[in-house]
């Protein structure tokens, strides 16, 4: 097939590159695979409908599992009677919570979730029992026959109410005050700094309760081999190895008897970044009935069990000196945790870490608490822990710029960090093009010419943001390498990358193939990627926290060193030159001094394998460890490791809106974005991530919110009333990748999967302010709120 090279700004003109002064390290002449907008390797099977997702699979003898769900948000389970269900022909087994009482959870110290409720339900729709039956109809019918007796308890839906009424009701017996965790971090002398500030402003911000809305519902297929005790689970997950470990804990079988395989995954956005009851139920039922069991949620179940974004109730205070330099930030955050802890502690402290970047903050204080409520647990959702504080801080800065009478751009640029910055909490930023992001977005959008000058109803707003990549997680209570890859090269299979990274749609398989090809001097099409399997691939933490490109990149580089060395040695022998004089490029191995001395790469492989057999390279990545300390006092600060990252991605957005001042409808007209993602391994994928991110958070800023009635029952557990953006809501999008190369990172890469969601809320909120002169401190910003605010404003002016 003819190879199509797509026209994009990145591979269009190599000349153009040099004219613009691209660093030689990024020169296309050096990178032939990395930096190209090649089409995704899984594109064709996906457009043909041939990609296999978990729900598409069937195994011989497979039966179906379904979960009975609670009709109370908070209640003691008095009795579960499954007799009638068991008698229904076709029903093979039922399962209740006490059969698998071991607690699971992504943060081992705080794991407190069970597969099905044990003794008590804590949110509406929590699983209370499950059935396995020959077909789905029977399984569904059996659920109706399970009788559950509840003793309702008071339902707490708001974190403040939950703390207030904790004397009377506890959601978890061991969590006093209904507080999952509370923490404080103090750096420097915040009060003193405020006292000396010229400008001080404090505001309260409240965020909403959106969820991921990935299109593929949770699905799991488990096959337990009763003879040898092996369990094989196929699941729509972002975290094969975590899942693997949780399975081992809950099923009490050793990890080496469990295999987790990811088929194609239909999106995750963090929502598949924890284990899901569907997965446990499939495994437990399979073990019980000795046959493969498939559990596929319907959309309603996804809503009931979703681990969406924490509603945050934030008080933020910022102080600037007379020149506008930030002197102190005081941040108080109450997070709505929902029913179980999940990612809780991590998210709590992520929100804390977000005040330290992307602006220089010499004094900072955080106080926060994550509070249990009778809602689905909140968890990781695109830009975990960042989106809420980013919104608050960037909006606050917008307001402070106005206080000072300068443009928010000026204020932000003035305070923006640069490469080599160490934050007060000891977070280190090896490289940053954040200023370039601000400049590019502002310039390209004409922000300065427009802000404050557009007619009433039209507005423009800007914001910056950043995110972590390749960061360390102590979730295994162990600092083993966070990613290990193996590359196998031989005459039969060519080049195969074996790993457990999770391709959830973000394009990591393509990007990894490009990186392998780059290092080995071949084409990305030559690389087979076997990912997402705990048996084929060695340990990988999972696809979250925008860690994959960085982590896999480092591990791939390391693995390729071994392979290249072996090949060079083989070729050296054949060519009669020294191995260290050889270059591998474009499928050839040649001497850099005598270019006539060359052999084809394939030939070298053939010779190598005929002597040694298959060539294998292993590589791994361990994130550097940095202590969370106050760099002035040197004191260790609780939770302050969280947020540290080997490097960070940065971005900036400018939003232009039109507000229909009669109806309150907000129309996002144009978004100009500039991002520093390091080297864009595949610029087309980067743009796709960024565009997706922007729409994702436009949705959460204007439309999306999960609503519950007073009893905790969902009012909109469907896409009809939970409104995600459609094509009609899409603004014009101008995304720009700023030139960037992080010398501390493999291939100079950073991240783009979650950084780009960060500036969306504040840029949009600031644009609305510019349009109608009203600042909003609550999300989502609905037409009703706009109308009401306009009315109040008018009355105020009278």
């Amino acid at each position: 097939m003819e190879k199509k090279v797509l026209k994009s700004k990145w591979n269009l003109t190599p000349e153009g590159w040099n004219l613009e002064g691209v660093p030689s390290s990024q020169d296309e002449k050096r990178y032939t695979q990395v930096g190209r907008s090649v089409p995704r390797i899984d594109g064709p099977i996906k457009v043909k409908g041939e990609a296999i997702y978990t729900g598409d699979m069937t195994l011989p003898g497979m039966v179906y599992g379904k979960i009975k769900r609670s009709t109370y948000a908070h209640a003691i389970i008095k009795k579960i009677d499954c007799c009638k269900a068991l008698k229904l022909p076709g029903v093979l087994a039922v399962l209740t919570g006490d059969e698998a009482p071991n607690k699971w959870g992504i943060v081992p110290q705080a794991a407190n979730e069970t597969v099905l409720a044990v003794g008590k339900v804590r949110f509406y729709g929590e699983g209370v029992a499950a059935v396995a039956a020959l077909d789905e109809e029977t399984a569904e019918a059996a659920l109706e026959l399970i009788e559950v007796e509840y003793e309702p308890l008071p339902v707490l839906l708001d974190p403040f109410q939950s703390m207030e009424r904790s004397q009377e009701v506890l959601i978890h017996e061991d969590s006093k005050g209904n507080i999952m965790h509370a923490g404080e971090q103090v750096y420097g002398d915040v009060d003193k700094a405020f006292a000396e500030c010229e400008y001080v402003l404090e505001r309260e911000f409240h965020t909403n309760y959106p969820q991921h809305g990935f299109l593929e519902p949770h699905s799991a297929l488990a096959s337990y081999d009763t003879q040898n005790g092996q369990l094989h689970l196929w699941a729509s997950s972002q975290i094969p190895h975590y899942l693997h470990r949780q399975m081992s804990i809950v099923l009490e079988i050793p990890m080496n008897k469990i295999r987790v395989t990811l088929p194609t995954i239909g999106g995750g956005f963090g929502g598949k970044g924890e284990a899901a009851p569907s997965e446990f139920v499939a495994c437990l039922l399979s073990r019980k009935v000795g046959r493969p069991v498939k559990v596929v949620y319907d959309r309603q179940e996804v809503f009931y069990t979703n681990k969406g974004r924490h509603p945050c109730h934030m008080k933020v205070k910022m102080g600037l000196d007379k020149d506008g330099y930030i002197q102190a930030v005081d941040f108080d955050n109450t997070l709505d945790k929902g029913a179980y802890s999940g990612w809780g502690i991590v998210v709590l402290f992520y929100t804390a870490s977000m005040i330290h970047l992307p602006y220089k903050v010499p004094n900072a204080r955080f106080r926060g608490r994550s509070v249990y409520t009778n809602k689905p647990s909140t968890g990781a959702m695109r830009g975990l822990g960042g989106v809420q504080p980013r919104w608050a801080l960037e909006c606050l800065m917008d307001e402070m710029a106005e206080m000072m009478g300068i443009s928010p751009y000026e204020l932000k640029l003035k305070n923006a960090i640069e490469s080599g910055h160490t934050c007060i909490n000891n977070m280190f930023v090896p490289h940053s093009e954040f200023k370039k992001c601000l400049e590019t977005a502002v310039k390209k959008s004409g922000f300065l010419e427009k802000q404050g000058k557009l007619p009433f109803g039209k507005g423009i707003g800007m914001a910056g943001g950043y995110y972590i990549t390749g960061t360390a997680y102590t979730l295994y209570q162990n600092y083993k390498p966070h990613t290990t890859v193996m590359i196998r090269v031989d005459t039969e299979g060519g080049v195969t990358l074996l790993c457990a990274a999770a391709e959830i749609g973000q394009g990591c398989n393509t990007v990894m193939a490009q990186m392998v090809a780059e290092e080995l001097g071949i084409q990305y099409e030559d690389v087979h990627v076997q990912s997402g399997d705990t048996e084929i691939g060695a340990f990988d933490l999972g696809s979250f926290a925008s860690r994959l490109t960085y982590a896999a990149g480092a591990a791939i580089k390391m693995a390729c060193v071994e392979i290249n060395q072996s090949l060079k040695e083989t070729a050296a022998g054949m060519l009669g030159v020294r191995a260290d004089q050889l270059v591998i490029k474009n499928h050839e191995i040649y001497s850099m001094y005598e270019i006539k001395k060359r052999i084809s790469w394939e030939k070298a492989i053939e010779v190598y394998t005929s002597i040694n057999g298959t060539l294998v390279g292993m590589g791994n990545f361990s994130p550097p460890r940095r202590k969370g300390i106050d760099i002035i006092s040197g004191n260790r600060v609780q939770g302050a490791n969280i947020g540290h990252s080997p490097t960070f991605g940065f971005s900036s957005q400018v939003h232009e809106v039109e507000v229909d001042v009669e109806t309150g409808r907000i129309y996002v007209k144009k978004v100009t974005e500039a991002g520093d993602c390091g080297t864009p391994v595949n610029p087309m994928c980067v743009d796709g991530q960024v565009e997706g991110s922007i729409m994702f958070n436009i949705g959460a800023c204007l439309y999306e919110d999960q609503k519950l009635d007073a009893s905790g029952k969902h009012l909109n557990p469907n896409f009809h009333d939970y409104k995600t953006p459609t094509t009609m809501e899409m603004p014009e999008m101008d995304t720009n990748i700023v030139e960037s190369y992080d010398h501390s990172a493999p291939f100079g890469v950073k991240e783009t999967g979650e950084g780009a969601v960060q500036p969306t809320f504040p840029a949009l909120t600031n644009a609305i302010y510019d349009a109608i002169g009203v600042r909003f401190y609550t999300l989502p910003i609905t037409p009703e709120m706009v109308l009401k605010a306009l009315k109040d404003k008018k009355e105020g002016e009278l």
Partner: protein
Amino acid sequence: MFLNHFEYFAPKTPAETLELVACLGSKAKILAGGTDLMVVMKAKAISPDYLIDINGVEEFKGIFCEQGKGAVIGTNTKLAEIQFSEAIQAKYPALAYAAGEVGSSQVRQMASLGGNSCNASPAAETPTPLVAMDAKVVLSSILGERELPLEEFILGVRVLDLAEGEMLTKFVLPEPKLKSACRYAYMGRRDAMEIDCVNMAVTIELEDDGEKVKNIKLVMGSVYPRPLVSKEVTALLVGQKLSDQLIEKAAEAAQGEAKPIDDIRASAEYRREIVKVLARRLIKEAYTDAKGV
């Protein structure tokens, strides 16, 4: 989520259909596009014993539009057909527009005009402009037919003036009057896939002078259990030349008549606000249009 078990009939002719409707009675439901029916059945809100699928009956489909003679639209004419029909676009643009704003392209391909009215949801798109155009429905049974203004057919939320054994077979639209225009608009949170929080249609007919209002009909959706025809707007504006002040007064009158409720989609207060805005805009637009005709 499975549907309940039911017996399925697919009649081929109107006579067969009416026969089935007569003998199966209230235990049966007519299946047109199913875009409402399937959803409520999945939610187990209703569990009919019989479904009568009318998609095999050609006579229930089609748009018959003759110069000077209004139009007749079969109950099972798909909304997409109405959306794209050049005849409807030319003669009843408000209807073509409303049909094109229902759900999504797939929904419009499946959903029927009759289903949209028979579903009797206060938020439905097309009944509003249809009432504004003085559309009538034809209800048929084995005993014969009767014709009824659409506004008298839809009585409340999921309540119709439909006797047992009867079904809706077609809509009869009068020819638009000379010097008249009809306009439709809706408001929701998104611009697609939206259950309207308010929708509205206005028909204005002018006197020969092309200035004074001879007749005006303003119909509101989603603010009352059924399409609500404003009495006050008609009373205020008939015989008048319209000015901004007068229009504002009329819009406020419409606002006063609306009896919306609070629900997850919008508050009653917001809906009332929107009634005023839409009324103001639509009266102006329809007035300008009518003058231009």
